[in-house]
């Protein structure tokens, strides 16, 4: 039962314990208590100081100190300001925000209200993916109930502070997780990012100071106020405080959400909480940070997880996706998979991202097909570094990370692809060769009949042979064979 001991539920404190469609159950577990305390007893500057002292850093991936962000928005004077909750969880393999919104929507609403009070905003917007219909429904219910109880709306708790929240829907664009792109999308435009500065804290939604925080970041806020900054900052490592929720998935026995204090090692998460690798296969890599992150290996397993350590190891925290891979996964293909994602999701505004990533993808594809050479590996690295240095927004600046981290950690595998023309994991079709094991072949001719290019020859009831020169490696013969006589090498 290690599982329970290692985990610490702050963000997910109410998920599964309350009926998310019933505000009374949330209140029974202290929802809106922190908000009440802040708006009745504290000056905004005092409250911001507490957030700063807690050491909370943005959970969306960047890791920017939340208190500082609030302070910037607070210091920019304007007639209107906005609080935005970024619930555009587009990172493939991450679903922690969805779980919070579906399981404990009030924690996000409460935190937004606290933030609004601190920075002097009257309106809040939640930018949520249209792909999360249940989360949308629960948020709508929660907002309506909070209004009914006077916890949202005009003159909250008789303090004169007014705040209300509206929902805005995303429409399937990964780049909208970037805050300037998100703001454009909320304004009904294409979700293209713009150069920062100006930061949204100066000029955001409608050109007004806007504070954008991720769902998980916000969910930490009520806890900080109820338990104190001191308590919160005792959890975690020196520069990363609190807990982090990870979406553990891939080839691991226990898949699902895991919330652990910062500083927990990857080994503890994958092997103790995650229960190790499926089917007793060998651990090969863990990918963190989604398309912006990298693949870490066995040697990183004992690294304490926090923002800075992961970056140092060549990956990043990202929003918290954690995909475990075993020896059957080809790291070159994994890099290609992420590039395919980036190419599709690139908004096309800046050339390094639009053209560079496409070229990176083509190079990787080339290598996977067995057509690469050593110069291609140099090209991959050079181009990755150029894209990193020159792209406009976070998406482009981090998109080569999967390539760079696999080049660093799995160079042998790249070498096998370009020098020996072999895929050690047996994933790259272009590098496979199909063989017929003579002893197993009964000469039923099923393979020869299904082969679309007539590459298989042999007499009836005699072992068959595949002509490698003609074979297109479609795998149809292998599927058809009932005697397991066809193998890939």
């Amino acid at each position, binding site marked *: 039962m290690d599982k329970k001991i290692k985990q610490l539920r702050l963000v997910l404190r109410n998920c599964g314990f309350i009926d998310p469609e019933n505000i009374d159950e949330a209140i029974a577990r202290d929802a809106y208590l922190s908000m009440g305390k802040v708006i009745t007893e504290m000056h905004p500057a005092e409250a911001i100081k507490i957030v700063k002292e807690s050491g909370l850093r943005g959970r969306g991936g960047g890791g920017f100190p939340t208190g500082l962000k609030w302070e910037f928005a607070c210091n920019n004077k304007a007639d209107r300001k906005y609080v935005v909750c970024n619930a555009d969880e587009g990172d*493939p393999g991450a*679903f922690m925000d969805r779980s919070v919104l579906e399981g404990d929507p009030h924690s996000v609403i409460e935190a937004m209200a606290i933030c609004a009070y601190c920075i002097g905003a009257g309106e809040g917007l939640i930018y949520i993916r249209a*792909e999360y219909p249940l989360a949308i429904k629960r948020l709508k219910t929660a907002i309506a109930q909070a209004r009914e109880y006077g916890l949202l709306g005009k003159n909250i708790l008789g303090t004169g502070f007014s705040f209300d929240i509206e929902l805005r829907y995303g*429409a*399937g664009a990964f780049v909208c997780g970037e805050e300037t792109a998100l703001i454009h999308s909320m304004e009904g435009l*294409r979700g293209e990012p713009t150069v920062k500065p100006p930061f949204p804290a100066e000029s955001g939604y409608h050109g007004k100071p806007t504070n954008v925080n991720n769902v998980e970041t916000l969910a930490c806020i009520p806890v900080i106020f109820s338990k104190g900054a001191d308590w919160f900052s005792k959890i975690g490592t020196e520069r990363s405080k609190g807990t982090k929720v990870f979406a553990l998935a*891939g080839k691991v026995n226990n898949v699902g959400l895991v919330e652990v204090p910062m500083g927990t090692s990857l080994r503890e998460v994958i092997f103790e909480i995650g229960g190790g690798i499926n089917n007793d296969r060998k651990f090969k890599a863990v990918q963190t940070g989604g398309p912006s992150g990298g693949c870490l290996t066995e040697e990183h397993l004992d690294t304490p997880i926090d923002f800075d350590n992961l970056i140092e190891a060549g990956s990043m925290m990202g929003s918290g*996706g954690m*995909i475990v*891979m075993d020896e059957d996964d080809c790291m070159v293909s994994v890099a290609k998979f992420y590039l395919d994602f980036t190419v599709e999701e690139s908004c096309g505004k800046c050339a390094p991202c639009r053209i560079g990533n496409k070229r990176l993808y083509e190079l990787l594809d080339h290598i996977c097909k067995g057509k690469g050479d050593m110069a291609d590996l140099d090209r991959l690295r050079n181009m990755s570094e150029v894209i990193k240095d020159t792209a406009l927004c976070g998406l482009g600046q981090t998109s080569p990370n999967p390539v760079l981290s696999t080049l660093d950690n799995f160079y042998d595998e790249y070498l096998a692809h370009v020098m020996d023309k072999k895929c050690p994991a047996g994933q790259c079709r272009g590098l496979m060769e199909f063989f017929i094991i003579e002893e197993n072949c009964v000469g039923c001719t099923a393979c020869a009949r299904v082969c679309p290019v007539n590459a298989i020859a042999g007499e009836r009831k005699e072992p068959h042979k595949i002509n490698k020169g003609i074979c297109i490696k479609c795998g149809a013969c292998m599927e058809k064979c009932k005697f397991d006589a066809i193998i890939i090498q």
Partner: protein
Amino acid sequence: MSSIKIELRKQDIEKIREIAASFGNDEQELINVLHKCQEHFGYLPAEVQEVISEALQVPLAKIYGVVTFYSFFTMTPKGQNPVSICMGTACYVRGAEKVLEEFKKELEIEVGQTTDDGRFSLSSLRCVGACGLAPVVMVGDKTYGRVAPDDVKDILKEYS
């Protein structure tokens, strides 16, 4: 703009105007208007965009720009049973690609296409956030988890 030419009926035009008006004909609400229109028509052909353009006083080119930017919006009609295969990382490492191949083979269409009888369309989507069930396939609103290539025929049979 689109290969499909349709003639909007009077009530269709009324419906679009009604949707636009419900958002105060505010150009900032464009994405919400598009969501509602797609909900109603199933897709966003050029003709629908033209009416939106008039109602919100936004150039048609800008609307086309927004529609084509976001993957959620489509300008071609989907099948009665839209099949979506999740191609998020968790699904990918658990073999979503093979499942997708099987659907392509069974339906004889490529991603983004609709079968000739209009019954099925095929798309790949990016992470539905059900990574614990990987690989995931959605048909309409129904979710299928841990799908193996062998399950594909049975899933399609449910809709025939």
